[in-house]
């Protein structure tokens, strides 16, 4: 089914092969076609109760291009429009909350909806199913962006054994490669020398930190809570252990995983261009 549709699309797109009769039958490549193809190839059965559904726009819309992003902010949508891309695949919500609930009479909500309508955009969330893929695409993508792939420990996408580096130098490197602004926060002495890294992007719960930190030198986390993983990391350092704990922020830690998502989609979708649009580090701090 998938192959024949792709073949059909290729044939239909080739003027020399497509006679007038075939051309008349041509059906557009729609957002629903992309969704169907992803659901068929994601590698797990699709969870009907998940939040991964179309958040804005019509599934029947003809797709001009696909953009993946960690968070479908207005900046991301505007860049998609500029690049003539109308199907946006996002990991995080579009409308300012887990449920993407309507905000009647809110001006920012209404402006965003208007912009989406006027530009014929379709926005689809893939958060639950992309996170559930094996091997963990968020850790794999983060490692790839950081240039650590060759240092992976065994077949664990979360663990990397790096040439020794100080916490300070590691953090500078993370900030540069992820184009961070003020989102990165760190526990630990910048002079501490490190080798074993454990990646815990996204939301980093206490149990994951308590499991990872004793067995490595530094955890690179996403979003944490100050009375949970942060205090555990502080106590680890106070107990005299030469370790570090880096928080990238939720979105910044997930961006590379959505760059990986774009590459995966390229292997499934050949009808339209697919690319990644970074949402960027949302945070700055006063000079």
């Amino acid at each position, binding site marked *: 089914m998938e192959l024949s549709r792709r073949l059909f699309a290729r044939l239909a797109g080739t003027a020399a092969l497509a006679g007038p009769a075939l051309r008349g039958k041509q059906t557009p490549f729609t957002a629903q076609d992309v969704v169907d193809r992803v659901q068929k190839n994601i590698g797990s059965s699709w969870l009907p109760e998940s939040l991964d559904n179309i958040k804005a726009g019509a599934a029947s819309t003809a797709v001009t291009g696909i953009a993946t992003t960690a*968070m479908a*902010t*207005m*900046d991301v949508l*505007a860049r998609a429009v500029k690049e003539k891309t109308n199907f946006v695949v996002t990991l*995080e*919500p579009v409308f*300012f*909350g*887990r449920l993407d609930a309507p905000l009647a009479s*809110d*001006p*920012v909500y209404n*402006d*965003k909806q208007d912009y989406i309508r006027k530009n014929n955009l379709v926005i689809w969330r893939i*958060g639950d199913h992309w996170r559930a893929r094996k091997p963990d695409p968020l850790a794999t993508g983060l490692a790839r962006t950081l240039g650590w792939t060759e240092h992976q420990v065994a077949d664990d996408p979360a663990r990397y054994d790096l040439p020794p580096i100080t916490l*300070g130098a590691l*953090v*500078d490197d993370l*900030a540069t490669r992820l184009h*961070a*602004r*003020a*989102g*990165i*926060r*760190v*526990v630990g002495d*910048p002079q501490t020398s490190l080798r074993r890294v454990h990646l815990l992007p996204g*939301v980093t719960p*206490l149990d994951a930190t*308590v499991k990872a930190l*004793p067995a490595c030198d530094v955890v690179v986390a996403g*979003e944490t*809570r*100050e*009375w*949970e*993983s*942060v*205090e*555990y*990391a*502080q*106590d*680890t*350092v*106070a*107990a005299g*252990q030469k370790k570090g704990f880096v*928080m990238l*922020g*939720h*979105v910044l830690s997930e961006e590379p995983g959505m760059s990986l998502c774009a590459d995966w989609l390229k292997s499934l979708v050949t009808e339209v261009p697919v690319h990644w649009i970074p949402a960027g580090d*949302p*945070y*700055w*701090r*006063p*000079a």
Partner: protein
Amino acid sequence: MTANDVVERIKKNLGIPWNEKTYRDTFKVGDPQTEVKGIATTFMATLDLIQRAHAAGVNFVITHEPTFWSDRDTVAGLTDDPIYKFKVDFCARNQMVVWRFHDHIHAHQPDLIWVGLARALGWQERPGPGSRGQFTFPQTTLGELAAAIARRMNIRAMRVVGDPKAKVSSAAAGMGYNIPRVTPSVDVVIGGENPEAGGQFDDTEYVLDAAFFGRNHGQIILGHQVSEEPGMEDCATWLRTFVTEVPIRWIRAGEPFWSPKA
């Protein structure tokens, strides 16, 4: 005077009934019958804080936030953890006692944690009912406002969302794990920490998108410790009014983070 005596005196002076069902405001470490040499109030009983308190001759720590890394200080599953063992051993060797004072200090009239934050921000709330945490001020820019708060509260790892040039003249502030929801009628929201994305309401994405449409909003994330540590100084001041037998000091847990140069 024992640690338990101090707690009983707090209950008596609180001015509100004690909630016996609280899982937060209980002893976390040590024997409540330990004789108290000195009291430290703090934002969070980190190992570093407990070590510094001990060095200062204090053996009773009154902490606002947890000791063992979760709201319920759940230690099941942690007993073999090397950091847990180190912390518990240090406390046992030095007869340290830790008690949490969270729900009831917030319930005290006025909420002493809030009093501390408002004092640290240096702002006067709008008068009138339901106005707690609501502020108006002469028009400034988000950038200048954030810079003034960072200077005044001496914050290393503040995070701000929004256009630094946005003109703002109102704010809603929260403390701890709470940043008020940004609405069309409030320019800036300020608080301790919050889920960044995928929460009940994501201020961060809202403010980013508001900025795209030229609407003047901002989100200033102080840090949980930054927002609640000042109130534990007010706690120490309040304790001194009815505990006079031993020295009481406010010892900062301190901002946990540093941040690389942007």
